[in-house]
């Protein structure tokens, strides 16, 4: 008999969580503590030396956070994960393991606006350079590869326009270049797309969005696919070289196929410090239990709203990969057959002003800068999330002045359509 492979919904409820061995508590306890006692001096030394599994201090690990980590690793089909304070912290910690000053990352031009800022400004100050490529043109990734390239970064479903990325094609470029492919899977969640099955080596999430799902907690996570050989060309000294901070341990040699997650924890999180609060981990874990149910409803509602908008006289275009005529429909059917996600954009015939009016006339949609909430959300990217980009970059990243972004919630779709209809007519 081989062990049964549980289905996605079973993993969403159970992975990582078992009854607490000391109290029997069935829900995951919130271990709201900074630190954990050692048995004796040798136990402490073993933990600090990475020789034993266990808890030391919540900046390095926490049992509530660990349940979240194992759960997301299981849902993504990864070997291990590390939870951090936000999606942005996840991106920072990942790249700190891979890049040194003067190194480069190739990133898809269509990314969450905040990520474009993070890469362009904050990371530049670390001497990490970014080369932008067009996710609709795989050759542009290939052309951007140089001897300094250390990673490729894409979103599975890209914010804000909900476009679908050809992960396998870009994974092939990464493999040929000998660098890992990092996929931000925030907008798809593993319910819709499992990037590791398509060749991703590292998956990151903003847990703040669909995984947590209730708009109440910030969080981020890094999932190690356990697929990349970090020691092959000594390009990744954080993983392949003896680490002075741990008496000369080599992380990959010691931790095998979950070495990247360990490097992120003991070299990244430990030293940079963006730890996730155990309370947030608990909130996000509770959210994940209903991910399959919510995500399907998000997608079904989004499709209905997109269909409605596509026939509306005030609307000039709808970008929703779930619509049959959409440019990304074929990729959606390949990568995300259960649904095209719930974040998409549409364009108003009335331009910038119509966008501003729509947002102010809506009564059920909330005007705010987030996605992936139970509630339906609306934003005008040109004046908010993407406002720091220049006009050309706005258009290139799918945030032109007439564009409005929706994140469709799990309310009744008839009510969402009625609200949009009245606001478009007002």
């Amino acid at each position, binding site marked *: *008999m*081989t062990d049964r492979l549980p289905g996605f919904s079973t993993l969403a409820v159970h992975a990582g969580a*078992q009854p607490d061995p000391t109290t029997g508590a069935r829900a995951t306890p919130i271990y709201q503590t900074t630190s954990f006692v050692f048995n004796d001096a040798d136990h402490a030394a073993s933990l600090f030396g990475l020789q034993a*599994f266990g808890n030391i201090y919540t900046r390095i690990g926490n049992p509530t956070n660990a349940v979240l980590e194992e759960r997301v*690793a299981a849902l993504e089909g990864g070997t291990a994960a590390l939870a951090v304070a936000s999606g942005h912290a996840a991106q920072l910690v990942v790249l700190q393991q891979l890049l040194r000053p003067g190194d480069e990352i190739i990133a898809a031009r269509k990314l969450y606006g905040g990520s474009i800022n993070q890469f362009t400004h904050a990371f530049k100050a670390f001497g990490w350079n970014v080369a932008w490529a067009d996710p609709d043109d795989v050759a542009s990734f290939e052309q951007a590869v140089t001897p300094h390239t250390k990673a490729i970064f894409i979103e599975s479903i890209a914010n804000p326009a909900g476009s679908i990325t050809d992960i396998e094609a870009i994974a092939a470029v990464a493999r040929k270049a000998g660098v890992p492919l990092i996929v931000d899977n925030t907008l798809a969640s593993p319910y819709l797309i499992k990037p590791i099955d398509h060749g991703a080596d590292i998956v990151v999430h903003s847990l703040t969005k669909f995984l947590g799902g209730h708009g109440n907690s910030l969080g981020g996570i890094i999932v190690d696919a356990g697929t990349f050989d970090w020691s092959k060309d000594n390009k990744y000294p954080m993983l392949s070289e003896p680490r002075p901070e741990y008496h000369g341990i080599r992380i990959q040699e010691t931790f095998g196929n979950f070495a990247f997650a360990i490097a992120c924890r003991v070299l990244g999180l430990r030293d940079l410090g963006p730890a996730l609060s155990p309370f947030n981990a608990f909130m996000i874990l509770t959210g994940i239990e209903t991910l399959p149910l919510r995500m399907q409803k998000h997608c079904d509602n989004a499709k209905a709203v997109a269909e409605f908008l596509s026939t509306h006289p005030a609307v000039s275009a709808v970008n929703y990969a779930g619509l049959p005529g959409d440019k990304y429909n074929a990729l959606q059917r390949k990568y995300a057959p259960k649904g095209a996600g719930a974040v998409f954009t549409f364009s108003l015939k009335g331009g910038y002003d119509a966008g501003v009016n729509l947002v102010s006339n809506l009564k059920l949609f909330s005007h705010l800068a987030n996605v992936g909430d139970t509630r339906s959300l609306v934003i005008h990217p040109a004046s908010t999330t993407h406002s720091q980009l220049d006009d050309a970059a706005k258009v290139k990243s799918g945030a032109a002045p007439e564009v409005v972004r929706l994140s469709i919630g799990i309310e009744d779709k008839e009510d969402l359509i009625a609200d949009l209809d009245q606001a478009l007519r007002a």
Partner: protein
Amino acid sequence: MNHDAYDDNYIRSILNNVKTIAMVGASPVNVRPSYFAFKYLAQRGYDMIPVNPGHVGKALMGKPFVASLADIDRPIDMIDIFRNSSHIMPVVEEALKLSPLPKVIWMQLGARDDAAAEKAEAAGLKVVMNRCPKIEYGRLSSEISWMGVNSRTLSSKRAPIPTQGMRLSLNRTSFGGGQTAASDRAAKNKTETT
């Protein structure tokens, strides 16, 4: 016997039944993976014997190194081979000359020799290849979950209360869990190309 994937109960019964483990290729250097595994297993109550001809005269955690399996003065249940795939066969051949025979041949993470495995199995031994007993112990006890590692197990049963602070027991019932197929495939491709 399928050596690409092992049933959790197969591994659990090995780790529950063996008591004496000879580690071939054990290193006294405290940042080497073999040292980590040796220490971890010793702390979980296994009677560990370090085997390494280069270190005879020294001791690992108080246990004196021996040069070869033949130099061990007591029956051995399991031989954990911390050597590359190309060095496995002679160790297995030596193991099969022991009396009584060991019960288990275990080849470390990264090491695999199917011919050696067949030989040991023909003599009635159990074989595990390309796994680390420390990782497997941590996974099946769920201790490794504290590091955010996918233990590939689920359980609705309360595990035994930890002994000595954070040590969890292997005696836990579990159901299969989240797979790591992509990593398994990558490991297989790597062993096939090297």
